[in-house]
């Protein structure tokens, strides 16, 4: 399961983690800023939620940068947070020049993120960041100091002081929009005031905005309570009093609005008063915890626990069956069996819920790829466009993480070696602009990610010649087209960069294949000369709990992940044919290579019966048949890595516990299929 040690440096991992999180946040901010800009340009109200959301993004970015000790980013995020907080609370007007600084800050973040992991490059940003930060601070201060329209209100100052910062902002905002500000007072019976108050509030919301609801001082009988509602509306005092069909309410004007003749009341657009918390401090704390970040290891632990429960559930089922089979305990057995069934349903629910949490859309990875494509387009001076589909396809977070490098590699190869120079393309009668398509889709329990380019395709003879010069094949080796193409995955080819110039492919493709196989997946390559190349990765959706087929060879039991099993056949050993020492089965007209698990793992188990089971396995397009003595049913299995000094034993993906203390090895089908297909003669 482990990827190559040399590649997993924890520092780089941490940086990557930060960058991917930060980029997500930044992407959201970009979108929000674009909306903000549109709304400002249209001259309309800016949606307060939008500002709140951007504020939260800046806050998250600040917290994230703090966690990873990236001070310059943290500092800049802090200043950005200041502007947005100012906008949110109305201290900074929407038309202030400092709004433009948000855009500049977003750009600066993007530049900073590209330099994460490179101390020198980051340090180079110190000065521009400080400069921007001080401009933000100055601008925000100037904006906040410009005039206080609240002084002009005909209202008790004690009441103004009681407003929360947010309420004050909404008040300013409404003054700026030229609305009428009024104070609606009403007295309610203490016993039923909440009903009455909410009726009044609803009535006002239909024609305006309730800015604040405050208990009002004044002389009231003991059984009554008086409230004042600070209200903003496009209707003036007379119109509002008339519209508000509320006999007990008295309305007084606090501030005359602008001329309202052509402004129709638009209740649906009016901001409802927020559920006002005791202070704005609390409000901002609360709004940030919209999502929870969870260490994937905690999810793993949870998953393991669920896995163990699932296994124990099976033994409850067995006990129930045993009880039922005995006459005197049959009744108890039936009851237990019912409970078992209900437990089963609930466990499945938990299991899929936990799995669900681990799933993330491919979009994150694709966004990164598109950035790489932009950068490469520049560096390599190639005209390429990227088309992405299936970005919503979901995969286990762990798999997505491990997928980034291989995918980048494939895309880079496609641009570097696949797509031709413009003049070459035009000469070949192709569109001058090259195209790379990435397509992700689900196929059964797997997700397929295919990268297709419309470049020159793989030059078979150059590839073969190179492989020959490296001693991987000899000149007289007869290889099928597929076998020739698969040479791109040979380790030797990848280590020499000049190979790629002649073969068109090959840099690091062995590493790609190794990484994908470590995840229990497969890589395949198709290429049409002159038309382009497609590289497809097939990956399991999750690594957490999987169904396994238990097979028996002699006294040994092995688990085979069910998503790699295509079918199982009971065959007579007389049906097995031989070719060059390899065993072959005629499977509906196709020759299927067979491999005995006993031979593969040198178990020394002799075939003692004429009947064998062939388990047809494969990932992607390749198939082989594994010969085993017996099948022992399907089980839910949690694959655990094997701990100890001997790492990465080829052929096994880990082990799983079946029943009490019984470890069963889980066969790594990818490597087994690979070994079997590449083996020239059987041992």
């Amino acid at each position, binding site marked *: 399961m482990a990827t190559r040690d040399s590649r997993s440096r924890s520092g780089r991992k941490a940086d990557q983690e930060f960058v991917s999180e930060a980029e997500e946040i930044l992407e959201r901010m970009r979108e929000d800023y674009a909306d903000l800009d549109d709304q400002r340009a249209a001259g309309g109200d800016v949606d307060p939620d939008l500002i709140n959301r951007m504020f939260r993004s800046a806050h998250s970015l600040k917290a994230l940068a703090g966690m990873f000790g990236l001070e310059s980013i943290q500092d800049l995020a802090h200043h950005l947070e200041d502007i947005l907080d100012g906008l949110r609370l109305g201290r900074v007007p929407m038309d202030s020049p400092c709004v433009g600084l948000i855009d500049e800050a977003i750009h600066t973040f993007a530049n900073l993120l590209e330099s994460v992991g490179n101390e020198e490059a980051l340090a180079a940003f110190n000065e521009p960041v400080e400069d921007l930060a001080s401009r933000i601070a100055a601008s925000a201060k100037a904006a906040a100091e410009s005039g206080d329209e609240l002084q002009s209100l005909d209202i008790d100052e004690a009441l103004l002081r009681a407003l929360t910062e947010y309420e004050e902002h909404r008040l300013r905002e409404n003054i700026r929009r030229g609305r009428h500000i009024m104070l609606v007072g009403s007295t309610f019976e203490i016993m039923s005031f909440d009903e009455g108050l909410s009726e009044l509030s609803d009535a006002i919301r239909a024609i305006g905005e309730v800015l604040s609801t405050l208990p009002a001082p004044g002389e009231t009988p003991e059984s009554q309570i008086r409230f004042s509602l600070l209200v903003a509306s496009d209707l003036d005092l007379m119109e509002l009093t008339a519209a508000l069909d509320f006999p007990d309410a008295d309305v007084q004007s606090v501030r005359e609005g602008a001329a309202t003749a052509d402004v129709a009341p638009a209740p649906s657009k009016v901001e409802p008063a927020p559920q006002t918390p005791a202070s704005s401090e609390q409000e901002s704390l609360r709004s940030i915890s919209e999502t929870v970040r969870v260490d994937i290891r905690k999810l793993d632990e949870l998953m*393991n626990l669920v896995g*163990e429960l699932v296994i124990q559930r099976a033994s409850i089922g067995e006990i129930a069956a045993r009880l039922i089979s005995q006459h005197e305990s049959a009744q108890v057995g039936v009851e237990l069996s019912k409970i078992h069934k209900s437990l089963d349903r609930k466990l499945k629910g938990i299991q899929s819920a936990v799995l669900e949490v681990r799933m993330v859309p491919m979009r994150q990875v694709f966004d990164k790829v598109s950035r790489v494509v932009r950068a490469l387009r520049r560096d390599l001076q190639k005209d390429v466009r990227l088309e992405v589909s299936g970005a919503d396809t979901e995969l286990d977070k762990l798999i997505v993480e491990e997928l980034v490098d291989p995918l980048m590699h494939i895309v880079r190869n496609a641009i570097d070696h696949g797509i031709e120079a413009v003049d070459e393309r035009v000469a070949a009668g192709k569109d001058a602009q090259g195209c790379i398509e990435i397509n992700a889709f689900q196929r059964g329990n797997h997700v397929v990610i295919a990268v297709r380019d419309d470049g020159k395709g793989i030059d078979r003879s150059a590839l073969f010649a190179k492989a020959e010069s490296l001693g991987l094949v000899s000149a007289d080796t007869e290889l099928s087209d597929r076998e020739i193409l698969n040479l791109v995955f040979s380790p030797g080819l990848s280590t020499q960069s000049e190979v790629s110039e002649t073969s068109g492919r090959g840099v690091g493709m062995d590493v790609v294949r190794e990484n994908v196989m470590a995840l229990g997946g497969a890589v395949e390559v198709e290429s049409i000369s002159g038309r382009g190349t497609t590289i497809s990765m097939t990956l399991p959706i999750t690594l957490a709990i999987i169904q396994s087929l238990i097979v028996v060879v002699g006294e*040994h039991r092995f688990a085979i992940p069910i998503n790699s099993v295509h079918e199982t056949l009971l065959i007579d050993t007389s049906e097995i044919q031989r070719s060059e020492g390899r065993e072959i089965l005629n499977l509906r007209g196709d020759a299927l290579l067979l491999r005995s698990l006993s031979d*593969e*793992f*040198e*178990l020394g188990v002799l075939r003692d019966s004429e009947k064998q089971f062939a388990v047809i396995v494969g990932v992607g397009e390749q198939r082989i048949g594994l010969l085993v003595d017996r099948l022992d049913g399907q089980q839910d299995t*949690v694959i*655990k*890595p*094997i*701990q*100890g*000094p*001997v*790492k990465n*034993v*080829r*052929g*096994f993906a*880990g*082990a*799983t*516990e079946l029943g009490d*203390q*019984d*470890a*069963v*090895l889980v066969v790594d089908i990818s490597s087994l299929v690979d070994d079997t297909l590449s083996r020239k003669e059987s041992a």
Partner: protein
Amino acid sequence: MSEVTTPSEEVRGWDALARAAANRGDSSESLDEIRQLLSFELAGAPYAVPVERVREIVRMRPVTPVPRMPEEVRGVISLRGEMIELIDLRRRLSLGSIEPDRRTRIIVIKADDDEVVGLLVDAVREVLRVSDEAIQPATGSDTGAVSELCKFRDEFVSMIELDRVLSLDV
């Protein structure tokens, strides 16, 4: 200057052993560094590992052989769901292998990478508290698995060089 717990085959839990060792009067000790060792038996001779490397001691349990592993690795055991390689310490030290019996124990050792590994030994003896004076270098160890000897009760205990013993990767 070495001390010994009450020799007892019946001490079950690792906790009991450790507590017994910890409760010994410290006041009488010299200022020398005191080491705690877990001693065990292989082919009738005493060996020891540092206590701080021991996570737990468990009885023999089903072992699943793993093809393609070096022969010193008996296979994989499941310890509360963890899958752990079991190293036959006799085979590792070229002492020949025996069938497990009722005294056989698995010492679960903490490796340096957060993982654990099982060591199969003939029997677990006791926890020793020894001062540095009692320890002397071992010479002529063929496998490099024993680097020091610790003398107590007129007997030499071979101290296992765990990092050497656990490097099996090929």
